């Protein structure tokens, strides 16, 4: 059981020890972060077997669930917890450049550890208020990381990001207050139990809308995603990759949990579908218009998040599977793309002719672009196919419109991604841009992972299907948290 709690607690502890440790010995402080994350990763991977058959819960302080706080551990939560530790480690700021400043590095490392801890906690939380607290912790540490560069534009972008985020938090808190007013609990399982009677009316749906907008800020959902291109353009590329890849997915996970456990069989998925469709449209067309590499891939990440939400809005295990596979695919691809953007941070024209000077980076870009567009054997194709079959199966007008938008978005995506690829193979006007090994390494690892996923599509697909079926099972969620209520919850449901 400790294997689940320690990966949250240890990084928090290490983050607070970081500053005094850096005073004593800079090298130890630098090694502490990766060490803690590696330990957490190993623990979570070991826990995988425990959750293989049945999900389980971890309670804190010896209080039983409705009063006490729980971690709910199923394979879906574990995947994202593992991803949180793994990608923080992968995108860790290793660089030991000439003007090495131990104290400043220690500050950055502490923020990274806080981010990893809060992301892991968010994935595992089975309690809405805990979700809120971890979400806020994640937000605050991401503000610190974005403003790391400390240039004028970075400050403005962070300020806007912070204000939009804080607005979102207040809205989410209001939604949580609404839920509490109607049910008197914030435990997700108990909410799920009470939902059919208490929350499927207009007031309950209003609470969902509030929480969707609130948590949608980090998940780059349509009306509240104006901060995305600005922040990703000015933040260090690693951090942008972490925000676009990891953090947005965790916010989407919160929405998925709410949808599956509390708002099954309500109009809530339709709302998500509409917003997701708009997000795809806005993201793809803005990416098509953008003239520089960082902003092109940040708009494209908005479009991908829209796809994730469209996937989640399809009812049943198929929807969870579709959304989950797009989310994991995008988590890989965007982290890699932003690693390439560390050097390719200028306008698209400035990068013309890079294919000759940087063949590896160009090859990786092509690989990522092909998978992102969804060319058949690549994992991106299967993810998109799942979404399309799901939408087609639903068959009502809204879902078919969404299907059309997904296709339209793909066409636009092909155009802007390969327009840039052609430019890379064009004539070089400027001195070449070379990536360092530290920047290319993580991107290459991700490239290898994509190729591996292409080869082993069938076993990975089967595993993900099992994960999705486990995650989409509302009764199992409730009966895992409250073993005694099992019969009551199930019989009430069948009626």
């Amino acid at each position, binding site marked *: 059981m400790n294997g689940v709690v320690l990966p949250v607690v240890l990084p928090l502890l290490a983050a607070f020890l970081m500053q005094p440790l850096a005073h004593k010995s800079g090298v130890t402080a630098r090694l502490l972060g990766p060490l803690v994350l590696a330990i957490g990763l190993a623990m979570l991977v070991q826990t995988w077997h425990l959750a293989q058959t049945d999900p389980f819960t971890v309670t804190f302080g010896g209080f039983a669930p409705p009063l006490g706080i729980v971690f709910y551990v199923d394979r879906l939560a574990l995947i994202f917890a593992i991803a949180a530790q793994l990608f923080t480690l992968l995108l860790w700021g290793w660089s030991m450049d000439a003007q090495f400043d131990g104290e400043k590095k220690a500050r950055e490392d502490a923020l990274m550890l806080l981010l990893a801890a809060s992301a892991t906690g968010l994935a595992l939380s089975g309690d809405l208020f805990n979700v809120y607290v971890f979400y806020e912790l994640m937000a605050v540490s991401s503000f610190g990381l974005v403003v790391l560069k400390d240039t004028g534009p970075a400050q*403005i972008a962070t300020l806007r990001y912070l204000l939009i985020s804080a607005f979102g938090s207040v809205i989410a808190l209001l939604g949580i207050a609404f839920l509490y007013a109607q049910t008197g609990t914030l435990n997700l399982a108990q909410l799920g139990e009470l939902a059919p009677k208490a929350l499927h009316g207009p007031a309950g749906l209003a609470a969902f809308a509030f929480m969707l907008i609130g948590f949608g800020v980090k998940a780059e959902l349509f009306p509240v995603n104006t901060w995305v291109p600005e922040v990703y353009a000015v933040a260090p590329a690693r951090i942008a990759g972490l925000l676009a890849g990891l953090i947005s997915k965790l916010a989407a996970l919160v929405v998925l949990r709410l949808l599956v456990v509390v708002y099954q069989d309500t109009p809530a998925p339709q709302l998500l579908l509409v917003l997701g469709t708009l997000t795809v449209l806005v993201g793809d067309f803005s990416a098509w218009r953008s003239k520089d590499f960082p902003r092109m891939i940040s708009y494209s990440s908005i479009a991908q998040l829209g796809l994730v939400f469209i996937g989640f809005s399809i009812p049943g295990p198929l929807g969870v599977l579709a959304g989950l596979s797009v989310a994991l695919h995008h988590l890989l691809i965007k982290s890699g793309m932003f690693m390439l953007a560390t050097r390719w941070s200028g306008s698209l024209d400035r990068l013309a002719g890079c294919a000759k000077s940087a063949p590896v980076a160009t090859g990786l870009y092509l690989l990522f672009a092909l998978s992102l567009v969804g060319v058949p054997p690549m994992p991106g194709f299967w993810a998109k196919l799942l979404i399309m079959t799901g939408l087609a199966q639903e068959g009502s007008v809204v879902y078919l419109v969404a299907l059309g938008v997904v296709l339209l978005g793909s066409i636009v995506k092909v155009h802007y991604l390969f327009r840039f690829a052609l430019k890379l193979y064009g004539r070089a006007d400027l001195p070449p841009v070379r990536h360092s090994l530290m920047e290319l390494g993580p991107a290459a690892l991700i490239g290898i992972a994509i190729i591996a996923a292409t080869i082993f599509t069938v076993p990975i697909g089967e595993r993900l299907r099992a994960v999705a079926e486990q995650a989409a099972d509302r009764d199992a969620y409730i009966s895992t948290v409250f073993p005694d209520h099992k019969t009551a919850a199930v019989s009430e449901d069948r009626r």
Partner: protein
Amino acid sequence: MIHLDYVTILYVGAIGLLAIGAAGLVICNNFFRILLALVVLEAGANLLLVLMGYRGDAKAPILGFGPDGAQMVDPIPQTLVLTAIVIGVAVQALAVSILVRVFRSYGTLDIRELKARFEHDIAVEMGIEPPRGGEAPAGGRIQSSGPPNFRPPESHS
């Protein structure tokens, strides 16, 4: 006649605070005022959350002040709000510290002006044509406070 007890008045107050905060967010053109509007909005949300578990005729939770035999006020919303207030204060302090830095770098907190300067700075950094003309706000503001010697980025031919 509507019976107005003080709990109703508190509810009206909380919703009023929310409305004022939301209006401020939309109307204001200065980052500091937007931050203040956000503080008001948050106060409204917190007050609403406390009111969810409040009963006029009940005892204080845990310590039990109040009339004998009365029920207890629900303590959970109060603990939640305590956490929310702490988080809010931390975020606001961070916001103010970044505000100070923005003001030191740009000498203004006006949203439209900062947005124009931001677009310009980013465009120069990326090496693309900075947005001009139609998208910039009307009036001489940009010219007076923008970078003194504006040059289009060198053409690379």
